[in-house]
Structure formats: C-alpha cells, structure tokens
C-alpha cells in the first residue's frame, strides 16, 4: 500500500489528534510493502492503542509488519491485547520488548512452550543449593526475588530466554547470588565483630535497619548499600564459582536491563551501577560526579566484607545526594533481587524462637534425668565464665560457656559446662550444638533460657523419652517412641511419636475360604511359578575348591594316578548356600480411606500372596498400621516373621479393616526395626498403601512426604530394600520424590491387585 495513503488512513483514525508528520511517516514506513488486507488489519488496531499511549502506538506500527511475518492477521488483535497487558503491567519498555520477539513471547506461550516453571526446575535446583551451601536452605516461588536468610524466593516461572537451558541458568544465578548474600552476611552485617554476628536481641530490628534509618533518605542508602554489596558479591563469585560467572557474562546482554534510549539521562544510581559492575558504557553521563565517585568505587574494589560496604555507603551517600537531591529509585537487576530486611528480621526471630524452645526442652529433659534429681531441682544460676570466673557456683544450676570465639574463622571453639550443685555434668552433643547455634545467632546465651529450663524441669514437665527397643516381637506391649523427620529444620523431632504394637482380633469368617475358591485357577498357577523360585541349601560335589575334601573323588583320583592317568583336581565338596535368603515384611495401610472394595481387594491379595510364599519358603511377616496423632500410632500384628501361616493368621487377615489415619513414618521405622533383627541376605519392606501419608494433626503435605521419604532412606541405610505398592487412580508428582523412581509401583485399578501382587513379588526377588 502506498505510504501517503497509509498516513492518511492513520490520521483519520486518530483524529482529532494531530500527531507530528515525521513520526507518522517513520511509523508506517515498514508497512509499505504489505498488501491491502494486511495493512487494514494493522490499522484496525490503531483505535485500540492510540488512546492508551501514543508512543506505544507508533512502536506498534513499526513492529506489526514484522509480526505479520509469523502470525496470521486474524491473530493480530490477540497479540495487541497481550502487548497492552504488558504495557499496563510493566510499562513501555516491557511492551516494546514483548513486541520485539513475536516467536518467543507470543507464539511459544500460545503453543504451550513457555518458559521454565519453578516446579519443573526445583528438583535440580534444590540439591544444587544444598550442595552449594552445605546447610539447610529452602527454595520457594514468589513474585519477587529475595531471601530472608532461611528461604530463597525465586520467580514461579522464567520466560526471559527462548532456550530452557538459559532460563534454568537464570534460576541458578539468582539462587547463587542470594546464597552469597546470606553467607557473606549482607543482610546480617553488624557494626563491629565484638557484638556477635548481628548484635541484636530477639525481637529487635536488624542492625542494618537502624543503620539505614539514620540517613535522611533510607531508600537511597539502602539502594547504595545493596549496589555495593552486589558488586562485592559479584567479585566473590568470580573467585568462588568462575564457571558460573563466565556463563553469566555470555548472557550479560540479555540479563541486564535494556539501556534507556533517547535523551533521558540515566539516574545517578544507574550510572553508579554501571561503574560498579564495570560496564563502561554508562559512565559518560555525569562526568564530574563520576570523577569523585571513581575513587570511592575503586576503593570498594577491595572490599572484603559487608562492613566495608557499610563504610562505602557512608562515603558515597552525601556525594550522590549533592548531585541528585531527588531520589530516583532503581529497579534491581533480576538476579540481584530486593533487600527485604523485615522478612529477614521475622525469619530470624522465628529461628531464634525455635532454637530457644528446643534448647529449653533439651536442657529441661537433661535436668530431669539427672540421677537423684527427685523433687525440685536446685535454683538456677547462670554466668559466663569470662565475666565471673573466680567464684565457682556453690549450689544451683549453672551453664558455663567456656572458651573464646575465634572471630577470624567464625568457628566457635566453645564448650558448654553444666554444673548442678557444684558438680559438673555431661551436657551432651545436642545441647552443645544448640548452644553453639544460639551463640552464633545472638552472640551470647541468654540467661532466661536456663531459668525457663529449670522451671520446666521443676514443674515436672516430662517430655517423651525413648524406651529401649525391648520385649518379644509378637507381644510388644510397651509403646515405642520414634523420631520424626522435620524437613523444615532438617533434623529429627526427638521421640516425637509413640507407637503401640497391637494384635488384630481373631475373626472367624469364611473370607479366606471364599477367596481360595474364587481364585482357584490363579493359585494353581502361582504354585507352579513360585516352585521354580525355590532353592535349598545343598552340597555340590567334585568342585575345584570347597570347604571339605570330597573323599570319593580323592580315592578315585588317587586310583587314577596310580593307574598312570592324570588325576582329576575336582576333589572338593562345596556348600552351595541358599540364594533365596530373603526376609520380607508387608506393611498394610489400614487407614479409613481404604474403606470398601479397596480394603477387600488388599485382603484377597494377601491371601494369594501367602499361598505363593508358602511354596517358595521365604520368611515373611504381615503388619498393618493406622492411628491418630503422634501419640497414638498403631501397629497391628497379623503375622510375625517367624510365624507359620496358620489358621490364626488367616483369621487375622480376615479381620483387617479400615481404621484411622496414615502416619507413614513411624510405621516404616517400626517395620525397619523389626527387619533389622532378622539376618537375611536380602531384606525387603513392602508397603501397600492407597495414597498420600496423612494424619489428623499437622502430619500432612510436604511434612508428611518428607518424613516418609526420610523413613525410607533410613530403611535403605539399614540395608533394607523398601518397595511401595500404591493403589491410586492418578499419578502424583511427589511419588518419585517420596519413594525414588524405581522403588514403587502404581496400580491404577485395584481389581488387578490380587494378580499383580504375587507377580510383583516374584519380579522383585528373582
């Protein structure tokens, strides 16, 4: 279409506005080669965009011709709508960027090939972070990037790049920077090392917050400090993780924000950022200031600690304010994220509260367990050796922190001494570690922790204590306590669960008989299949080596050689050991969700399985589990490992019935404990469940999944192979994580279970 005609059409569309001629000419230039139909469809969108933004409308006209190369004119209105979304959400620049790459920003998402979601990447990112930090840091998706020193928050999705690998790299980069801010104490900087790491008391604000507030414009001070720290962290990462940073430089052009076009002078902060991150292009803008900044900035190049950045912030702040009295905020770089000091404060408070609770709990337990500590414990006393080393406590409880801190390495060579009535008592590793954690957070061990522990012990506060694993297997009457894994603190909740082993009632019913006749054909086949698995211990004769001499063979060989023949050297008897040295424990989920035919089929499967196992001769036990809340986990005995498959067992199978909830961890741990006592070459723990672990209390979701997973890891560590059979209609993504990809099987149709179960077992143990 002719350029003049296009111009005319455009002007008529935007009338009565009268835009500048050149702008219009420039904008429609690209459309000159297009046919009339396309030009019309482009022009049709002008009335939609013009009222929103004139510049956007011009940009649109420039970009639209190119866009039509990959999209149909009919799709243009959708594209325009998306562009306007971008404009309204993130401004003109972002809308421009959106229009610039139709393929990536518009078509890929339309086809469902958008960027990388956090959920997809988390499985790789989390171990990466854990390896990097060597401690328990969490990852979570959030609208903005930041960290509260406990969790690193990353975008729910990254779509910046076309390639998934690049988007993944950006996740990795964000996480690495946030991790570095944590380990390099950017957020927990303190004025002087003497005050401990942070110098703050629980509940108080961070030292950094107070520092920033002392400026007339705290936001500016914060931006400066954050910039200086980002520069320092960048240098730190260059040294620590050169591979990462090399890749970052390769992608730099895409990672850094698009430089502002046009006349707008970059703000002083933006210029400083360029200077600090050594991007020379930006420096021209404000030469006089840069001159004075330069010397400070070059001083910053050698900054080794957050405290150096604090000093540099104080030096830079007045210079910046002189040149640019009005604060112009600067969008942080994507990987830099924001500084959320309030979130840090809250997270650290929670951490301290938890540390305090655990410390008091453990110390109280320790005090209660002191020999001869009946009645009221002595009055608490507390002191720190440095302050009061001369007068040893005469009576009462004292907790003494001995040994200094080695500030240079941040490692604390402390010993905790517990003195009760002037007698020194072993504190134990747990208490020592907790105290160490508290001191590294707070800089000291608050006296009231000791007081409250003594108080709690005095009130006869008795936390659950572990009983020894004891008693016969069948009639375990005393409850057993188990630890439970708390993924949030990456540690066990000690003696958290109380589990009771119980007998299932005998139930006279025709259930087993009916099952046997119903599956008659199947059972005959099972017998044959399983017979082939059977193998006994036997002696094999005429071996080249073995435990004993095969006398027959020797005599024969001697005779042979006397006769001038070469005697055989196969003269030994060897004990061929039973290759099927297997012990297996079946653990049946008896939660109420198995109500109905699920439960019935599980019982039928057990009957079939017992028939098959009777043939093969493996040792096996069957137990059920259910319960409610952590203090009432129940473990039902159906068949012990050494017990024969007799009438009583059949009746107990008949009386399996749905009960309460599925607290998986303790049941797995108890089953593991039972299996540990059995000597067998292969020990298997097969769980039969109908879905998620869940209890009435907070044993749900991630917590329950992580505890179950951990219990399975513990089983594996005890050389027990866990395997889970799950009856569920749909696959859940947590299954792989919980059981490990090869260690479970989903059965989508419960009716298949009676057939599948023996097959599975055979495959597992072949």
């Amino acid at each position, binding site marked *: 279409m002719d350029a003049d005609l296009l111009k005319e059409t455009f002007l008529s569309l935007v009338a009565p506005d009268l835009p500048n001629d050149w702008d219009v000419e420039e904008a429609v230039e690209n459309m000159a080669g297009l046919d009339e139909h396309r030009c019309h469809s482009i022009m049709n969108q002008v009335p939609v965009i013009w009222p929103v933004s004139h510049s956007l409308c011009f940009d649109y006209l420039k970009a639209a011709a190119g866009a039509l190369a990959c999209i149909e004119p009919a799709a243009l209105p959708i594209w325009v709508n998306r562009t306007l979304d971008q404009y309204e959400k993130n401004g003109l620049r972002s809308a421009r960027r959106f229009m610039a790459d139709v393929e990536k920003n518009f078509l890929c998402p339309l086809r469902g090939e958008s960027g990388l979601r956090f959920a997809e990447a988390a*499985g*790789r*990112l*989390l*171990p*990466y972070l*854990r*390896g*990097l*930090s*060597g*401690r*328990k840091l969490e990852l979570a998706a959030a609208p903005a990037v930041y960290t509260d020193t406990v969790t690193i928050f990353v975008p729910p999705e990254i779509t910046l790049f076309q390639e998934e690998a690049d988007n993944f790299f950006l996740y*990795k980069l964000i996480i*690495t920077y946030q991790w570095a801010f944590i380990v390099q104490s950017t957020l927990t900087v303190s004025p002087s090392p003497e005050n401990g790491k942070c110098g703050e008391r629980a509940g108080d604000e961070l030292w950094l917050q107070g520092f920033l507030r002392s400026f007339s414009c705290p936001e500016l001070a914060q931006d400066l400090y954050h910039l200086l720290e980002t520069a320092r962290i960048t240098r730190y990462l260059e040294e*620590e*993780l*050169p*591979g*990462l940073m090399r*890749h970052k430089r390769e992608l730099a052009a895409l990672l850094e924000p698009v430089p502002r076009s046009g006349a707008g002078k970059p703000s002083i902060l933006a210029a400083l950022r360029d200077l600090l991150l050594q991007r020379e292009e930006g420096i021209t803008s404000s030469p006089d200031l840069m001159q004075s900044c330069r010397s400070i900035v070059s001083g910053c190049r050698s900054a080794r600690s957050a405290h150096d950045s604090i000093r540099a912030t104080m030096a830079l702040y007045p210079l910046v304010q002189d040149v640019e009295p009005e604060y112009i905020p600067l969008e942080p770089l994507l990987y830099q994220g924001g500084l959320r000091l309030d979130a840090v404060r809250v997270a650290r408070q929670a951490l301290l509260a938890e540390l305090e609770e655990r410390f008091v709990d453990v110390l109280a337990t320790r005090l209660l367990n002191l020999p001869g500590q009946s009645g009221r414990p002595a009055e608490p006393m507390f002191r720190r050796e440095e302050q009061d080393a001369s007068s040893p406590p005469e009576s009462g409880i004292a907790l003494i922190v001995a040994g200094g801190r080695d500030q240079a390495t941040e490692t604390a060579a402390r010993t905790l001494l517990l003195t009760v009535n002037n007698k020194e008592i072993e504190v134990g590793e747990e208490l020592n570690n907790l105290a160490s954690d508290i001191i590294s957070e707070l800089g000291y061990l608050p006296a009231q922790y000791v007081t409250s522990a003594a108080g709690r012990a005095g009130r006869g506060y008795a936390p659950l204590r572990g009983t020894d694993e004891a008693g016969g297997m069948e009639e375990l009457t005393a409850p057993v306590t188990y630890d439970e894994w708390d*993924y949030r603190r*990456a540690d066990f909740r000690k003696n958290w669960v109380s589990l009771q082993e119980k007998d299932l009632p005998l139930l006279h019913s025709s259930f087993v008989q009916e099952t046997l006749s119903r599956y008659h054909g199947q059972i005959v086949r099972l017998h044959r299949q399983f017979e082939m698995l059977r193998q006994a211990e036997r002696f094999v004769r005429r071996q080249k*080596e073995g*435990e004993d*001499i095969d006398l027959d063979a*020797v005599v024969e*060989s*001697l005779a042979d*050689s*006397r006769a001038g023949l070469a*005697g055989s*050297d196969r*003269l030994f008897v060897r004990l061929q*050991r039973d290759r099927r040295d297997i012990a297996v424990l079946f653990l049946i989920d008896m939660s109420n969700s198995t109500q109905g035919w699920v439960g019935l089929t599980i019982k039928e499967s057990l009957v079939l399985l017992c028939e098959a196992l009777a043939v093969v001769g493996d040792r096996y036990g069957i137990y059920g589990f259910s319960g409610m809340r952590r203090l009432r986990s129940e473990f039902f005995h159906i068949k012990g490992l050494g017990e024969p498959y007799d009438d009583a067992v059949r009746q107990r199978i008949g009386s399996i019935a749905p009960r309460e909830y599925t607290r998986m961890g303790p049941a797995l741990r108890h089953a593991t404990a039972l299996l540990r006592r059995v000597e067998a*070459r292969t020990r298997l723990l097969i769980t039969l469940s109908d879905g998620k672990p869940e209890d009435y209390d907070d044993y749900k979701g991630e917590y329950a999944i992580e505890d179950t997973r*951990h219990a399975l*890891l*513990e089983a*594996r*560590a*005890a*050389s027990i192979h866990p395997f889970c059979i799950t009856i569920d209609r749909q696959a859940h993504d947590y299954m792989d994580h919980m059981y*490990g*990809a090869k260690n479970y099987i989903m059965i989508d149709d419960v009716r298949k279970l009676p057939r599948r179960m023996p097959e599975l077992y055979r495959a597992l143990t072949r």
Partner: protein
Amino acid sequence: MDNMRLEEHRIEQEPYYLPQGQEVALAEAAYNSGLPLLLKGPTGCGKTRFMQYLAWKLGRPLITVSCHDDLSTSDLVGRYLIKGGEAVWTDGPLTLAVRAGAVCYLDEIVEARKDTTVVIHPLADDRRELPIEKRGELLLAPPQFMLAVSYNPGYQSVLKDLKPSTRQRFVALSFAYPDPEREAEIVAREGGVTGDLARSLVKLGTMTRGLKDSGLPEGASTRLLIQAGKLMGRGIDVRPACHHAIAEPLTDDPELLQAIDEMVSSVF
C-alpha cells in the same frame, strides 16, 4: 613358595601419604604394643593408602584381604589342596601373615559373615594366637605381626553390624576426608593436576558432600576427585571428566545428576 608369595607383599618404595593428624604416631604405638587397628571412615578417604604407608614405615609386608559375604574361614586361614595325588596344606592370607610377622589388613570387615569374623578374635586380643583347626595347630603371632581391619560406618547406620565383642578389641582410628587444603594437595599430586584445578575439584567434592538429605548417602570421595583429575590429564574436558568420574559414579537419580553437573559448571 610361601616366601615368594610374601615378597610380593613387601612395599619397597615409600607410598605417598599425607597425614591428617596423629594417625601415624598412634598406629606405631599400637604396633609396638601389639594392639590391632580398626580404621573407620567413608570410602576413598585414604584408609588403604594409610595401611600401605604404615607397612612401609614398619618395614613389614602388607597382606590385604577384601572381605565379602562369601568369605569363609578357610579362605582366611588356609585349606588342603591336592597336589600330585597328595593333600597339601596351603596357608590362607591370615595364616601367612601371622607366620611371617606381616601386617594383615582385612578391608570392609563388616561384609564378612559373622562366623568368619570370629576367627580373628583370639588374634585380636592379648592371646595373639591363631588356631588352625584342620591341622590341629595353634600359631602364636610374633611381635612383628599386626592385624588391621576397616569398615565404613556409612550413612546414618548405627555401627552396621560390627559386634561389640569384635569392636572392643581394637584401637580405632577415624578417617574423614582431609581438610580442603590437604585434600587439594593430595588431588594435585595423585591426580596430576595443577593446584588451582585441584582446589576446584575439592570445592566440588565438598558440595556433593552436602547432599546427604537430598538423597545422596555419600558425597564424592578423594578417590573420585583424583580420578576426575586423571581423566583431565588425558585430555578429557573438565565437564565430561567430572560427569563421568564424579556425578555418574555417585548416583543414578536424574535430578541429582543434573544438580551435580550444575555444580560442575558453576565451579569450573
């Protein structure tokens, strides 16, 4: 014949061993007091190398037996073989070591069956004797003989099956991965890589050791780091070298594999 067998076990050249602490002095003291040694520690942290060094230092041959669950008493003590129509007794490695006053090192002792482990009991206490039942012989160990066993306490396992009656006969030395500087020195020397590369390998190793709760029971051992170094020395690029020498040997889990590869690409 036995003399020949023995000579093979003599260590002529000083093995390279970088001490981590007092272990050499402790082991020598144990040797001089006729006490057996128990070495614990994760795989590939230098236990075997330490024994080689110790045997060299003591000037004794070193006889190593890798234990497995089919290892029988006769595999250790000896058995009759028929030679030329006659039954000839042949000493097992343990007996050989006792007779010759050598150092006998039973690697991964927990893998052996319980009934096998008990034959070392009388050797490991102050009797220092080895009964050879089939021959009706009772061997008394000379002062030069030393018994050493090793095991890997492993991931969270409560002293995997080693019975207290066995454990409580030994002087125990606990081995861990050396501190980063020393480990880098070892990796540089044994793997034949530069100091910088060795330090990066150690950094990577340390990262993988932080993956306990992510499903990796044990992180990369010094041995794996050395092996990665050796591949690099043969011209394999860093990433494939680390992938094949470190990531793959550690795990089959696809996510963990990727996470380790990511660590590699960050570190190098």
